[in-house]
């Protein structure tokens, strides 16, 4: 059953409003979860749980928000992603836009990758995969 990107966006918007207590006009495509919408680490888990329920999909840990990469010494050096780390990150987050992040791949800037658009694209991809 195909869902248009617009429909996916509306549902993701609803999930973020419920999980973060923000108003729906704050949920724009470019808004970052942590910076603009005030999400904490526990909120990321709440968002994954709600997305699974809203879209009837399974999101294994680390698939939407790859936290395991940060803990790997091969991928992070002196607070910055290594080339190998960046490659791994891109592979596990095909839904994210890395053009800004690549200019300065500091770990502290990683939360900026988690935009509303990245989540909508992730869900759209997932829904296409399951047919």
């Amino acid at each position, binding site marked *: 059953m195909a869902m248009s990107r617009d429909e996916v966006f509306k549902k993701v918007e609803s999930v973020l409003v419920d999980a973060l207590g923000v108003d729906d006009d704050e949920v724009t495509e470019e808004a970052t979860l942590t910076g603009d919408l005030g999400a904490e680490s526990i909120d990321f888990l709440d968002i994954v749980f709600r997305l699974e329920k809203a879209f009837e999909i399974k999101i294994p840990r680390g698939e939407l928000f790859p936290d395991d990469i940060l*803990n790997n010494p091969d991928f992070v050096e002196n607070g910055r992603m290594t080339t190998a780390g960046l490659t791994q990150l891109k592979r596990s987050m095909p839904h994210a836009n890395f053009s800004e992040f690549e200019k300065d791949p500091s770990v502290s800037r990683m939360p900026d990758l988690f935009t509303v658009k990245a989540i909508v694209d992730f869900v759209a991809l997932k829904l296409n995969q399951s047919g």
Partner: protein
Amino acid sequence: MRWMWIDTFVAFEPGKRAMAVKNVSRSEDHLHDHFPGFPVMPASLMIEGMAQTAGVLVGEARRFREKVLLAKIRRARFDDYCTPGDRIRYEAFIEAIDEAAATTRGIVYKEDRPIGEVDLMFSHADNAATDLGLPGHNFVFTDQFMDLLTAFNVRTAD
């Protein structure tokens, strides 16, 4: 005064569901400030009652290996309030659980009538990547809580 907001468990299905009871008594100190002249069980302490019910359910599901700490009140809603003489029941269900966290939903009853809902998230402090200076041992599951489960033959950490 003890920080114990459930009196006993009346149901315990490991990994799934638990129900605990709390009797509201006029002799409880905190009711005399909330409010002087008309004691009402504070909703925040009913949220704690649910957190204790759900917290033990979650802890037992992972054999009390980790510290289970309340990380988020996703949502709580109360349609009525409780006063001395009322028997409150907290029914908690595990919705999701893994090594980092657990999500629970719950119904609060006044006698047999549902009067509220409390949905919570707990983090498993030994596994969530935090540096909050927590002591090494499991300070959360004291004897007070473990004693409540003796009637249910539940498994504890090896």
